[in-house]
């Protein structure tokens, strides 16, 4: 039996004797006999650390780690500086709880305060929270922030990542809110449709930068239209690209949200990730979750505390702005360390390299017969291609060479593939991808 109980059986017995009971069962005497489990759990017995390590390593070994990867769509492989993992592995950060006792949690609290500042700088909006579960739930929480009695219609751009749209729909189902997806034209939000849908009941409009298909939209104009209707303008952004892109603040957005995974978090099959949220200062008290604020202690020294807690579930119960309690604190710390190591120049470099590689990849890819760009719009690190062959077979062929290609789309977008490049993709790798695609195509004449 594996165990993390320090007390030996002898000590346990002595402790039981001291309590005046004959055995463990007696301690559970309050549990009604009918609900006591009258058999051992049908699980295998425990094992040693070495055995479990081998077993789990075997499981990990059944997953294929692609060294050459051209897939994004919500999860991006960027370079993670070595310092990031070293800092976030520090036991104090790892094993502490939510910083309720400020006097012995100044490290966690200050790190969150620094995170809030960095996210505020990235997005150009004043008020950031300490994080939420992921980018999709951040969008859902933003929608909740925008809800007003007389405005309960929420507009989402159809060019957002479908996962965001689905999550928002689940969150809002049965709450008396109307969710409308604004149709897409040429890979971006259809402005005419948006104009038609915006009215005095519209609470907000959400758009993604760059959008699901990789395109940059006319965020200036979309924002103007939204504000003219008196609705809130919400942008969901890629934080690494905010190193070079015009910020939600500059576009006049009221709220910016996004998936923070590109900021130093591994792909990790989808989690843990990091939802970030910033809002105009006027919306600060509507933000969900933890917020760290600066104050003074009894000695007159600067100190950090969890603040504006009157919004939260432990005080407001059913009237809270959200039920969120645990967030993604360690992931927020990861992002902070990443940003400290990269700085504005490193971030600009990561964004520009991603963009340059994506454009090189697009050019080479579209040089192959059967591939063409799906849209004419400007893009950064991702782009959509129309492929008139069997993309499933193509991807399988590439996988056999250890390459994970772009993501073939389904449903209404069938026949399109979204490709992604980051600084991690070398020119050599891209050239090899092109050669392999040609090889696969020539081998399988029927695809």
């Amino acid at each position, binding site marked *: *039996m594996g165990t993390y109980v320090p*007390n030996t059986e002898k000590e346990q017995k002595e*402790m039981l004797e001291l*309590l005046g009971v004959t055995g*463990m069962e007696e301690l559970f005497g309050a549990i009604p006999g009918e*609900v006591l489990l009258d058999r*051992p*759990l049908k699980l295998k*017995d*425990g*094992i040693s650390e070495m055995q*479990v390590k081998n077993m789990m390593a075997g*499981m*990990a070994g059944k997953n*294929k780690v*692609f060294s050459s990867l051209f897939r994004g769509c919500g*999860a991006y492989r960027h370079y993670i500086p070595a310092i990031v993992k070293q800092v976030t592995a520090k036991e104090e950060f790892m*094993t*502490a709880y939510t*910083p309720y*006792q400020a006097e*012995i949690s100044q*490290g*966690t609290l200050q*790190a969150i*305060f620094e995170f809030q*500042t960095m996210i505020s*700088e990235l997005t*150009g909006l004043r*008020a950031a929270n300490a*994080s939420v579960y992921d*980018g*999709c739930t951040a969008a859902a929480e933003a929608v909740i922030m925008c809800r007003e009695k007389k405005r309960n219609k929420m507009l989402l751009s159809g060019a957002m990542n479908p*996962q965001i749209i689905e*999550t928002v729909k689940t*969150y809002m189902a049965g709450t008396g809110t109307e969710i409308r997806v604004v149709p897409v034209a040429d890979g971006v939000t259809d402005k005419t449709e948006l104009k038609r849908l915006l009215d005095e009941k519209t609470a907000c409009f959400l758009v993604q930068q760059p959008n699901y298909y990789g395109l*940059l939209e006319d965020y200036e104009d979309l924002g103007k239209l939204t504000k003219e209707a008196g609705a809130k303008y919400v942008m969901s952004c890629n934080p690494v690209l905010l190193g070079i*892109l015009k910020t939600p*603040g500059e576009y006049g957005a009221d709220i910016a949200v996004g998936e923070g995974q590109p900021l130093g978090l591994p792909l*990790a099959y*989808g*989690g*843990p990730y990091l939802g970030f949220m910033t809002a105009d200062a006027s919306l600060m008290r509507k933000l969900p979750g933890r917020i760290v604020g600066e104050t003074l*202690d009894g000695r007159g020294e600067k*100190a950090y*505390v969890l603040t*504006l807690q009157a919004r939260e*579930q432990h*005080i407001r119960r*059913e009237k809270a702005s959200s*039920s*969120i309690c*645990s967030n*993604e604190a360690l992931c927020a710390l990861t992002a*902070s360390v990443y940003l*400290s*190591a990269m700085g*504005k120049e*490193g971030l600009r470099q990561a964004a520009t390299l991603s963009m340059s590689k994506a454009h090189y990849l697009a050019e080479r890819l579209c040089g192959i017969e059967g591939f063409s760009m799906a849209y004419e719009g400007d893009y*950064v690190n991702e782009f959509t291609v129309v492929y008139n062959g069997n993309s499933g077979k193509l991807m399988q062929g590439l996988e056999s060479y250890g390459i994970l290609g772009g993501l073939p789309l389904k449903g209404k977008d069938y026949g399109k593939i979204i490709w992604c490049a980051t600084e991690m993709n070398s020119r050599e790798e891209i050239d090899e991808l092109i050669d392999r695609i040609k090889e696969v195509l020539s081998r399988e004449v029927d695809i």
Partner: protein
Amino acid sequence: MKLIFEKSKDGRGSVLLPPCDVPETELKSCYKREKELRLEALPETDISRHYTELADRVYGVNNGFYPLGSCTMKYNPKINDEIAGLPGFADIHPLQPDQTVQGALEGLYKAEEYLDEITGMDHFTFQPAAGAHGEFTGLKLIKAYHEKRGDSKRNKIIVPDSAHGTNPASAAMAGFEVINIPSAEKGLVDIEALKGAVGEDTAGFMLTNPNTLGLFDENILAITKIVHEAGGLNYYDGANLNAIMGIARPGDMGFDVMHLNLHKTFSTPHGGGGPGSGPVGCKEVLAPFLPIPRVVKEGNCYALLEEGADSIGRVRGFYGNFLVIVRALTYILTLGGDGLKSTSENAVLNANYLMEGLKDTYTVPFAGHCMHEFVISLEELKKETGVSALDMAKALLDYGVHPPTMYFPLIVHEAFMLEPTETESRENLDRVIAIYKELYEAAKNNPEEVKNSPKKTVIGRPDEVMAARNPVIRYEFPV
């Protein structure tokens, strides 16, 4: 201590990325950010020292005793972290084809089977990222269930007033009206109040059992029956599962849906406030409504199912906080069925041992054995000396131990809620008992001293009112 922004200087930093090896693409100026990013890179030396200094100002489970009631701050085995860091888990893309992530899917599938057996549920989803997220998801299942049956008038969730704040908040978020019922003595469910509250509009009832006083509700079967007979479903808040693994199962007590906190019971580190993981378990009857995606087994292969006709939909982007689940799976495999039971037994033994050691000094409001946690009241002490539970908590900081949960549950005045967990040794408990006794004497003999604590921490008591009244929530760069 200075903020990182006050330590950085323009032009410093490491060379982390290579030069561009393809033609450089210039972003059109209309898309470019106008305001320069105020984020200077730091040399690695400074980053390392900054975060070491911050880490020194954090108290974690590795620093010492951390008996936060209902938070189950047990020791987090390092092997869990090592496994979660394996490239085969950490470096796989969530949109990889199923056949290339068979190990990940197998792990998720097995973890689901193990949790089914531990809790007596039929299915689990790992999609929720934390406990409150699990509550929200579980309540959505209840909503979908009634709606599917055309029973749409059921829009109320009953919550005892002793519940964690997340319960009513999640119910409201899921679109329910919340009915609070008062608790009977010992924080147990008031059967009459429950009977009076249920009806044709009852969608469900949420309960934490053992409750926040560390007591197992002896009427549990009667309670779940009342709710079922009224047509409602029973929701089990798994915050306190550490008391009953291998001993009793929510699925055998009449609960239809529940969540677990993997970062509590299954020993994955809490990271200063997350990431957690809040898997939701349910009985067969609720399975069609589980969120997407779902892991299924087809022959010898595993697949991620992205659709479900009656599913409530997606509650998060990709499938759950995967690396947290990997840690929990490692933990379950290490302990095994016998180890899990022994874990709960020792959690309960340690709590009773600690309670026994304190009961002659402090007021233990309810007699009898406790489960994994217990509550003591400092009301008498406050009356006598003016020293409050908050003062005592702050004084404990100077002794180098983490204070317990304070002022919760509300049913006990000046409450301290202690959960030592199974990973503390007898000597540690003895040491803590001695500290608590010493502190009690200090409060009696020198109350002013205790009221002025802490003295040894890096900051004194912070002014929380000031923080909320005039919120400063980011650094202001000098102009």
